[in-house]
């Protein structure tokens, strides 16, 4: 359990660092590694902050504009193939950030292995912050009919909800919402935009 928390602490720090452009990761890690009780409180607060930050419009905007451009977006598939211990080492050193969004293939609602990593990251925060609740907001791309897509968006959000439940988050802490194709992240009509629009957003309630 301690190891898992450490992972989250480090994950949080690197996320925050990435958001705010704070000092180098090494320094941050030094500050936080000591598992004192006071730190526990800070950690919970930071985890909460991370969830909030992940949901502020500001961060979302950064996500849209910064599409796949940062070197820190190290292939999450690579991580998925490694075991937990390996990951807990890897995550901080690579400055891995978890965008609170799960993407899907065309007409698909399968949460793939790399997306499970994201779910696990936020599920861990939720497990450690029992008062927090989340909304899972499902979206589709513009292709296909609007009402079918409304249902497909829900199907995706429900698939992500199932994944959260696998990691110990109870059903009553998850609200599933679908916006279908109505609120695309990218307005363009091409494959790249469609791929970004097929998503479930993880939001604090």
């Amino acid at each position, binding site marked *: 359990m301690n190891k898992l928390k450490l992972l989250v602490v480090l994950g949080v720090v690197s996320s925050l660092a990435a958001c705010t452009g704070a000092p180098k990761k090494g320094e941050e890690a030094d500050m936080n590694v000591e598992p004192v009780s006071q730190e526990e409180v800070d950690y919970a607060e930071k985890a909460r902050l991370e969830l909030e930050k992940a949901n502020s419009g500001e961060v979302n905007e950064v996500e849209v504009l910064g599409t796949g451009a940062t070197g820190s977006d190290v292939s999450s598939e690579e991580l998925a193939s490694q075991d937990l211990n390996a990951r807990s080492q890897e995550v901080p050193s690579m400055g891995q950030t978890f965008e609170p969004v799960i993407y899907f293939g065309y007409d698909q609602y399968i949460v793939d292995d790399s997306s499970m990593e994201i779910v696990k990251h936020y599920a861990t925060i939720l497990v450690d912050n029992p008062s927090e609740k989340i909304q899972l907001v499902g979206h589709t791309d*513009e292709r*296909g009919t609007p*009402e079918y897509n409304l249902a497909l968006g829900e199907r995706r959000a429900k698939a992500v909800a199932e994944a959260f439940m696998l990691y110990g988050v109870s059903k009553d802490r998850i609200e599933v919402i679908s916006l279908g194709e*109505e609120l695309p992240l990218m307005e363009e*009509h091409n494959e790249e935009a469609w791929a970004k629009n097929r998503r479930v957003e993880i939001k604090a309630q």
Partner: protein
Amino acid sequence: MKKIIHTIVGFVFIWSTSAYADLTIQIDQSSDNAVPIALVPFEWEGKQLYPPQSMASIVGNDLLRSGKFKAVDESKLPSRPKTLDDIDFHQWKQLGVDNLLMGRVVEDPNGTYQIEMRFIDLLRKEQVIGKRWTGISKSLLRQVAHKMSDLIYEELTGIRGAFNTRMAYVTVNAVKGKKQYSLEVADSDGYNSQPILRSSLPIMSPSWSPDGQHLAYVSFENGRSQVVLQSLDGKSRQIIAKFKGINGAPAWSPDGKKLALTLSKDGSADVYVMDMKTRKLRRMTRNWAIETEAVWAPNGHSLFFNSDRRGQPQIFQVFLDTGEMRRISYVGRYNANPAVSPDGRYVAMVHANNGFHIAILDLYNEEFNVLTKTYLDESPTFSPNGEMILYAMNQGGQGKLAVVSVNSNVTQILSVQEGEVRSPSWGPYLPR
């Protein structure tokens, strides 16, 4: 292929204050089989130099949009008769024109208008329609012109015209970087648009009550989908479905007593029928799959809907009395969003094959035809006479509406000047 563009600017003298969401019509005329009709500009008696509306032009545009008729170019009219006696029948025979519309608009001292129309069969040399409207306010002049179009269309085809009808649609505009959604109701030619709801969150799927007095639609105003019932005058408005999960795809029954809708409160998206009086729900489908987009057969005995129970969306039919189901669409891997023609014979649908297009299935002989070749076509809706299908599409990255005539290749494109337009729904006949 001849392209005729009618812009709002073309009718600059009727530019109204509510032109904001009016639709501009562009007719892509590919049929040369259109029958010519002589539309003589109406005689005008009034204080101004010109009448407030050019009745003959409105009628001409209506008839052109049908794909079956075209107006004789005004400059090629050999004469401008005012009465039957004025007509030199030989002159018109040489022009190859069999029908002629003439009439007059008179401004009365009280500011209202009198309109007379005479529709002449030049072969039989007689008046086949003669009508007068009195006490017409300026704002109703276009409606009178559409009524004329309806009468002429019925006289020439035997089919009731659907020009004097309305449509509902949703416009999306960016106002200071924020999206604004508006549910609009406009005449069938895109004029006289009036917003009935504005929201910063999406609106979709308007459905007309059979009496044309109400719309049911989906609004995300509370952050999630809810089905709302609203009178056109805006005086009554209720959220009638806000269950857990999705609330969508409202469709009024032909008798106006029930509403089909999609709910996921019991699991996956399923089709339900709500009794409008008691608000009681009856679940029509029970399946892990997505079942949605239900529409009524005109006799009210069955629903057509979209189900992906076979892995991909296909059209199914369910009968209300027995609960019996059958699959309707077999051509291609993706068929969704059915619309039933008013006579119950045809089912239009969104068909994906090399893009999304509107296809039509003849239930009598199972003939299946793809009608459209525009981009990202969706949301088909029949005109009340079944002659045309209005749908949403995308052109140049902008959401637009288009109308395709079922029996010819004429497509007209309707667009807003700024922003996007989508989710069309063609309203019922208005009283004659």
